[in-house]
């Protein structure tokens, strides 16, 4: 990923900034200019709580090149209390531990190492609540 692109995405990735529509209250992550719910233009910035619930999940066995060393790893679609949904990896979990309905915390983690220079890219991963560090 070219660095200007990575830099542009930092508010969403590092600070979990989502958008809340002043028209219909829909919360969208990452934020957008136009609300997908009602078409209102312009959203308020709202930081997401660092916790959520698993909506659906999988374990990736055949991974993309950058993630091959980590496979197999669980991934989940989680919903935060604000109603935003995110696709995240689930770290620090045992095989088959991740199930729909499970409560997770979101922690700041290294997501990937990119390119020949091995540039580190960060973001959030979910962890089972009882293993959360904060």
């Amino acid at each position: 990923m070219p660095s200007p692109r990575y830099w542009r995405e930092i508010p969403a990735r590092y600070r979990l900034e989502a958008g809340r529509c002043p028209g219909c209250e829909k919360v969208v992550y990452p934020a957008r200019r136009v609300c997908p719910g009602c078409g209102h233009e312009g959203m308020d910035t709202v930081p997401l709580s660092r916790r959520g619930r698993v909506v659906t999940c999988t374990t990736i066995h055949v991974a993309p090149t950058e993630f091959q060393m980590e496979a197999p790893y669980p991934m989940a679609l989680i919903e935060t209390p604000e109603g935003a949904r995110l696709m995240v990896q689930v770290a620090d979990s045992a095989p088959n531990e991740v199930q729909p309905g499970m409560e997770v915390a979101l922690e700041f983690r290294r997501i990937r190492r990119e390119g020949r220079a091995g540039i580190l890219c960060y973001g959030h991963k979910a962890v089972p609540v009882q293993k959360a560090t904060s």
Partner: protein
Amino acid sequence: MREVAIVGAGMTPFGELWHSSLRDLFVEAALGALRDAGADRLDAIYVGNMSGGQFVGQEHLGPLMADHLGMAGVPSMRVESACASGGAALRAAYFEVASGASDLVLASGVEKMNDGADVTAVLASAADQESEVYHGVTFPGLYALIARAHMEAHGTTIEDISAVSVKNHRHGALNPKAQFRGEVTLEQVMTSSLVADPLRLLHCSPVSDGGAAVLLCPLDRAREFTDRPIRIRASGMATSAMALADRKDPAFLDAVSLSATRAYQMAGLGPQDIHVAEVHDCFAIAELCVLEALCFTERGRAGQATRAGETALGGRIPVNTSGGLKSKGHPVGATGVAQVIEIVEQLRGDAGDRQVKNARVGLTQNMGGSGASSVVHIFERV
């Protein structure tokens, strides 16, 4: 709008075609369609292709393909909607003829996936790069998330999902153009290697090369080219939220439902009027979700219907008689047009061992990404 008919069809076999390049595949399919109709000129060409740029480093496919068909000068362009590129190309060609702008238009699809590209990464570019792919999800991973959601919501079992692969391989074994012409057992499917839990290797369509093309003209000119024209009754397309996270119900494919509703309305027909269908089973779970979105079964009932044989040859509504993407192969940009060719053969009565008796009305459903775009066409024997 004018009525439009398909008067010619041609396709390559699907598979690992090491001797054929992207352009070879297009030319073989296009010549097949032209010869089938006895046509020697074209007013326009649409080339459905997901990612010539990433798979073989080749963009600008419109002029390249027209040139190699010996038709430089003819208007020609590429249409892209990920794995729905072929269906989208047909839709563009259909409206060009229906509008009266052109008479003879080629709708084609082509993909060369086996030329050394990182296929997993290229396919993932049809998902949301910023919110999905960044975190390490793959395409099978997205459909695995859909599968788990479907299992949670409706009690669908892994046996239900696996029955789709068994059925489609049984059909594909009868198709000389199919990549895999071998049957598989439920046990083989359920013990194949895990790709993205709960999906295993035999729940996934393969990596394929292939090309397919159909020739369209106004219905009132069709008899100049064939005595068995196939009328296009309807073309419906829809989109939904790109990322799985932004869909209300990850187990329901909104775009498929909406594209089908539009096609049914345009044709003045309903799901009960369809005699044979080709649907987008890129993963076995996708076929179950599509059957429900097309209203071929009630929501949550597609697994049971499949296990009961309702969608097999000889069943209530035979689905994927070609073998589907699973067994026939899935050269992504070509798939949407190849689906149409199976329906054309069925409605012409040319499907041989795969023939559905008295098939007069057929449907194709082709989708892109994790279902964010969907194209549905309905056809009728004239």
